[in-house]
């Protein structure tokens, strides 16, 4: 079972399960969050005093650019005050009664997280958010269900995205989720409908009756009294005489409703402009921006629950597929392998090689490339080609059979120069790779040989 133990070398506490080494970092205050340490944690337990602090923490965690950190399971302690309003943002509420359940949940989330590819693809902010949201839903096997939230601009929040985007950006949460639905990553089931301000899209509206002439809500409503005997009809105030009702037309006292008089309807009078009317105009005042909306102008949002489709699950696991950009072979002047072979053959067939010709190859360690998404691999391939071509002459030929192998022919270079060029290419490519994924031993191997029947390594 879970036991809360003090980490010997840290002020933070961790939870352990029997002898299993599950590292659950306990955070009691906002300042305790060390984002770097999240890499090694299996989960977090938020145990702040207030829900506000807990909310701040979950926002910091979920909005981390590193998805490994952003998707980490986060639990909240049942001791946090006003927990109900934010519990949907957490993977569970930690208490003595829920320890076992949370452990199972933690294991399940970890297992699903392990299935996913965390490469940073070439995604814009919204695509990145969508990717993270899909991964979150997949790892939690969760449907994005709307939760009523008094502080959300549209009155509803969603798990994960609601933690990342601020309450006033609730519309963007819906936009992202609707895109996921349009793209077929999720299916949507309508749950609720909400009206929003025309100006700021806020959903916190105050509906009230207003004067159709001046828009004021300072209205006086009075019953109309119809005196049967003389057919006089006017607001009740006209009939009032001390405690009695007296007809202003015939001076007779109105004693009995239904016998002497009735009240066929009522009228509103605006206290600002004195306009009298029966049909008050209902307007919606936006509490956020103060814009007074006519009902016909209000926006309408459908609040739904979004469930991952099988396609969405694939995207969660392997990343969003981005439309391939046009091949830039022209820009980097690569040729196909067949062309390169043709050049090589022609060069070898020349009877006299006045100047030396070199054949080079660059091999990237296959394991390195496997860390990257296919699209990212293509980008890296392009960058490596750019690096190599930068040090080649105009007549030299470059080809890249695949993302880990680059071949080139260099004409008219002395052995010293070609050695220097090979060294520079190796250094630059190694730097490119280590900048991207961190330190790696021998990320690229450059081999340059003289183009003749013999082998002359540089």
């Amino acid at each position, binding site marked *: 079972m879970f036991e809360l133990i003090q980490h010997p070398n840290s002020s933070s506490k961790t939870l352990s399960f029997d002898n299993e080494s599950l590292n659950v970092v306990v955070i009691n205050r906002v300042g305790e969050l060390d984002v770097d340490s999240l890499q090694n944690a299996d989960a977090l337990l938020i145990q702040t005093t207030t829900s506000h602090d807990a909310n701040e923490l979950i926002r910091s965690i979920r909005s981390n650019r590193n998805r490994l950190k952003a998707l980490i399971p986060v639990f909240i302690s049942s001791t946090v005050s006003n927990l109900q309003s934010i519990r949907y943002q957490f993977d569970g509420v930690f208490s003595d009664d829920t320890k076992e359940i949370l452990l199972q949940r933690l294991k399940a989330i970890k297992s699903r997280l392990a299935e996913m590819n965390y490469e940073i693809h070439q995604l814009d902010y919204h695509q990145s958010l969508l990717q993270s949201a899909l991964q979150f839903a997949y790892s939690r096997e969760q449907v994005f269900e709307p939760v009523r939230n008094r502080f959300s601009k549209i009155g509803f929040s969603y798990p994960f995205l609601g933690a990342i985007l601020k309450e006033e950006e609730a519309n963007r949460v819906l936009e992202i989720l609707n895109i996921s639905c349009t793209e077929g990553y999720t299916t949507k089931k309508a749950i609720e409908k909400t009206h929003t301000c025309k100006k700021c899209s806020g959903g916190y509206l105050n509906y009230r009756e207003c004067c159709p002439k001046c828009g004021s809500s300072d209205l006086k409503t009075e019953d*109309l009294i*119809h005196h*049967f*005997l*003389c*057919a*006089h*009809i*006017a*607001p009740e105030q006209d009939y009032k005489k001390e405690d009695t009702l007296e007809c202003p*037309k*015939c001076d007779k006292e109105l004693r009995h409703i*239904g016998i*002497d008089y*009735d*009240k*066929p*309807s009522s*009228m509103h009078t605006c206290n600002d402009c004195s306009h*009298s*009317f*029966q*049909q008050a105009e209902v307007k919606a005042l936006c509490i956020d921006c103060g814009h007074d909306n006519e009902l016909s102008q209000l926006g309408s949002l459908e609040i739904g629950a979004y469930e991952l489709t099988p396609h969405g699950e694939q995207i969660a696991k392997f990343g969003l597929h981005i439309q391939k950009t046009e091949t830039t072979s022209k820009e980097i002047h690569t040729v196909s392998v067949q062309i390169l072979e043709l050049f090589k053959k022609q060069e070898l067939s020349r009877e006299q090689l006045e100047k030396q010709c070199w054949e080079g190859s660059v091999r990237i360690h296959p394991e390195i490339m496997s860390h990257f998404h296919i699209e990212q691999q293509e980008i890296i391939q392009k960058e490596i080609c750019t690096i190599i071509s930068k040090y080649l002459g105009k007549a030299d030929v470059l080809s890249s059979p695949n993302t880990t192998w680059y071949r080139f022919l260099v004409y008219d270079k002395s052995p010293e120069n070609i050695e220097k060029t090979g060294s520079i290419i190796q250094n630059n490519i190694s730097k490119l790779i280590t900048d991207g994924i961190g330190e790696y031993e021998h990320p690229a191997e450059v081999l340059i040989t003289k183009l003749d029947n013999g082998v002359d390594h540089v």
Partner: protein
Amino acid sequence: MFEQLAPEYVEYWFVVGFNKFLRVFWYFCLFEFTRYIIIDYIIVFFKWLTRKSDDEQFEQARRAFFLENPLVSIIIPGKNEGAHLFKLTKSLAEQTYQNFELIIVDDGSDDETPIIGKNLERLGLIDMFIRNEIRGGKASAANLALRYAKGKYIVHLDADCSFDRDAIERVVIPFYYDEKIGAVGGNVKVRNYNDSLCTSLQAIEYLKTVSVGRIITSYLGIYKIVSGAFGAFKPEILDRIGGWDIGPGLDGDITVKIRKCGYKIHFEPKAICLTNAPSKFKVLTKQRLRWDKSIIRFRVRKHRDVYFPHANFNWSNFFALFENVFYNVILDLMWILYMIDILFNYTSSLQYIIPMNFTLYVVMSYVQMGSILLFTERRKEEMKLIKFIPLMTIYTGIYLRLVRTTAYYKEFFFKHSYEDVWNPSKSSTMAKRYGL
């Protein structure tokens, strides 16, 4: 020569002499011919003489009216009138005078009227739409509109009417003739005169009694009914008299109330409103029974004080009501006496009397039609009605007289108007109790 061409029944009266003719046709000569031919044509002649000064007076008043550009409140009370409302707003949108507010009061409609009215108000085609969930009667609906009207003049309309482009302008301008004019009646004509024989006959009747008849009474200062379909009022006077009282016949009632306050009533023949008349005699009979009962209820009972000397006695009011009661009620009774007289005293001459009587009335109708065509602005259309004129003798002389007599009988002896479903019983019960 004439003796050879004239039918035998005409020749008979040449033979028996003029004295016998007068003795037999005293009713026609004394009341009908004098009132509807002689007086009409005398006044037509006078109006022709003063036509230039009348035109100048109108132009002067028109200039003053447009210079002031007063807000006019158009009020339309009604029940289940939703189907007419959009057409009505379109008709009003075409008016030459546009500084008006349109107030429509829905008196407890049980059809789509509230929905239509509210939508038109939302679209800005109606300035104020007031819905009474409980029906209170036309008078209360008109009073409610009056309560919220802001205009310097009130124009009361029926929802099923349409108007000539200058109708609103023309119905208000007469207020600039004379400060003492308290109300102006518009000219109401039949729009659906081609629908049936019933509507064609009513079209002729309206031309005779409304278009020409009211020109005459207005000229004589005894005009006593501003039609509910189209009339204009000064709101301060309406406030003073407490607006409309319980109907049916509230338009005639309010006109008398205004007269009794010392104001003049003017008829404007060129302020033209078209309305749909009942196309079936059964519906027409119901309508006329209701209208005719109101003569007894209001002219004979409620406003009987105008016939007797008192501090505010006014001769023109006396004559206005007396003419109305005399020509409708008293002559109706006299007609019965006349019939008895003829039947008993001239039994052997009936074969000459009946066709001659019919001939006299047909000729009189054609002569009357002449005065109509002198005044009308729709001469071409109204000429089409000439073929129906021979039938007017039966229509007015027999049909309308029978309906009228029945209505008087029911109202005089049984106060039948208080049971009319046109008005809600809660109001009628109270009105009957207090003799209103």
